[in-house]
């Protein structure tokens, strides 16, 4: 099971409602996965700042340490917006490597969920409604976003096993399905020096995409090579800085449905996720073809 939703706005007048629309879509998919939920939202940020979304199991202590020390250590201003167990740090793009090194020193227990100009990833154990409420997702605006609700099969129910997984700057991955060669692929990637933290199959998928792109592939090429190198079932949705992409394995057991109007492109594991979108009755509705990579971007 697992449920995936995605929403890409063509009509930016809907941007203030993106978080609300995406939250409602994800709540509709609760029955497909009650274990954990997560959302990646893309919204613009002014000037040359990057956003670093971090998570801590001890947020009061860790985020206090970050507030007090990070700016001093990187000798540059950092804004810290705390949202429950996550915090969004805004800082100069040039300081990002330094900041990650500093974070590892200040509070080694803090995990980086996402890095990018636009993306923020929030994920936790729990039902979609609870998780979305904890981070006030429905109040967020944005240009596009993806969400996931998990029914765990391949690894434990933990925050780090929840989706979306970051695959690079302003990129993330959600997955419905299960990869059957993730152990051997994890070993191969680890030998190449790729950092993989959990036993989760999707994390391996995300690490694989990151690795391919480090080797020079575009995201589209990396997704194409998934069809060759990943064994098992997958419907993947990837979030990018400008939009999102979809790819399904050649057998295509895992459901996927798309809807497009002049205002938006929407993705859902089921049509139910899409029924409350504006003018859905007039939308073009179709299923993405197996073994075919699709992209929508601004």
């Amino acid at each position, binding site marked *: 099971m697992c449920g995936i939703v995605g929403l890409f706005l063509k009509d930016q007048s809907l941007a203030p409602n993106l978080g609300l629309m995406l939250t409602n879509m994800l709540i509709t998919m609760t029955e497909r996965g009650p274990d954990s939920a997560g959302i990646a939202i893309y919204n613009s940020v002014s000037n040359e700042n990057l956003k670093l979304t971090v998570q801590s199991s001890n947020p009061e202590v860790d985020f206090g340490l970050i507030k007090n020390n990070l700016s001093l250590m990187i000798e540059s201003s950092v804004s810290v917006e705390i949202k429950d167990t996550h915090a969004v740090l805004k800082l100069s793009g040039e300081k990002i490597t330094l900041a990650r090194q500093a974070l590892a020193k200040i509070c080694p227990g803090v995990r980086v969920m996402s890095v990018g100009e636009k993306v923020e990833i929030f994920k936790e154990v729990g039902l979609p409604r609870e998780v979305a409420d904890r981070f006030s997702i429905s109040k967020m605006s944005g240009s596009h976003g993806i969400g996931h609700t998990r029914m765990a099969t391949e690894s434990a129910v933990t925050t780090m096993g929840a989706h979306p997984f970051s695959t690079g700057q302003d990129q993330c991955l959600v997955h419905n399905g299960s990869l059957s060669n993730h152990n051997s692929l994890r070993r191969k990637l680890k030998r190449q020096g790729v950092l993989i933290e959990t036993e989760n199959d999707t994390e391996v998928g995300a690490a694989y995409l990151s690795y391919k792109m480090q080797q020079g592939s575009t995201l589209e090429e990396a997704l194409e090579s998934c069809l060759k190198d990943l064994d098992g079932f997958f419907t993947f949705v990837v979030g990018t800085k400008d939009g999102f992409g979809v790819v399904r394995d050649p*057998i*295509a*057991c895992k*459901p996927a*449905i798309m809807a497009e109007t002049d205002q938006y492109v929407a993705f859902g594991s*089921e*049509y*139910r*996720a*899409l*029924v409350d979108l504006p003018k859905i*009755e007039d939308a073009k*509705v*179709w*299923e993405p073809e*197996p073994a075919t990579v699709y992209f929508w971007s601004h």
Partner: protein
Amino acid sequence: MQVFDLESNPLRELNATLQLQNSDTNQVNWEVQNPKGRHAIAVGLDAPIEVRVKGSTGYYLGGMNQKAQITVDGSVGPGVAENMMSGTVIVEGDASQYAGATGHGGLLVIKGNASSRCGISMKGIDIVVFGDVGHMSAFMAQSGNLVVCGDVGDALGDSLYEARLFVRGSVKSLGADCMEKEMREEHLDILSNLLKVSGSKAKAEEFRRYGSARKLYNFNIDNAY
């Protein structure tokens, strides 16, 4: 006509009410409003009633149907008319995966396209698709007729038993043990009748017939890996 609004009444109540109808009922016309992609609408019916669903549905619409005629003014999710025994299910839009799976009888008409695995393991049902069907359609189909007025995806009729497959458009590839067969008079009769009752304007002469090569019926060591 009886009207049931799923926005204000629970789905279980709809199915329980429809399942209570018998051959003597005088409530023969039903309209279901606001399906909004819900699953398992109008399943397990066992009476000659007519049900019209005003919108698109989720999984398993009309599953296990006997005798009823169910029409959907929209598209349907996976497993429409799964294990249908008799009666008719008509979909005005598209159907998702495994439409008509394991159906024993009755007629399933899809006026749009059907997705992958249409008619998987069909056991006597007749399925007419006005548009295209996806990959692995009629996988392990045992009996009945699958009529596709459009094109067919990969691996049509893989591991097929005795179902008849009629295709008007192109076939991307045939599955293991599926082959094109001669279209005889008796097949044209069956096909013409199915096209007529389903309301298709296609001509039987425009179709090709596919069926089992019957090479997988007995164990053959050359088929082992």
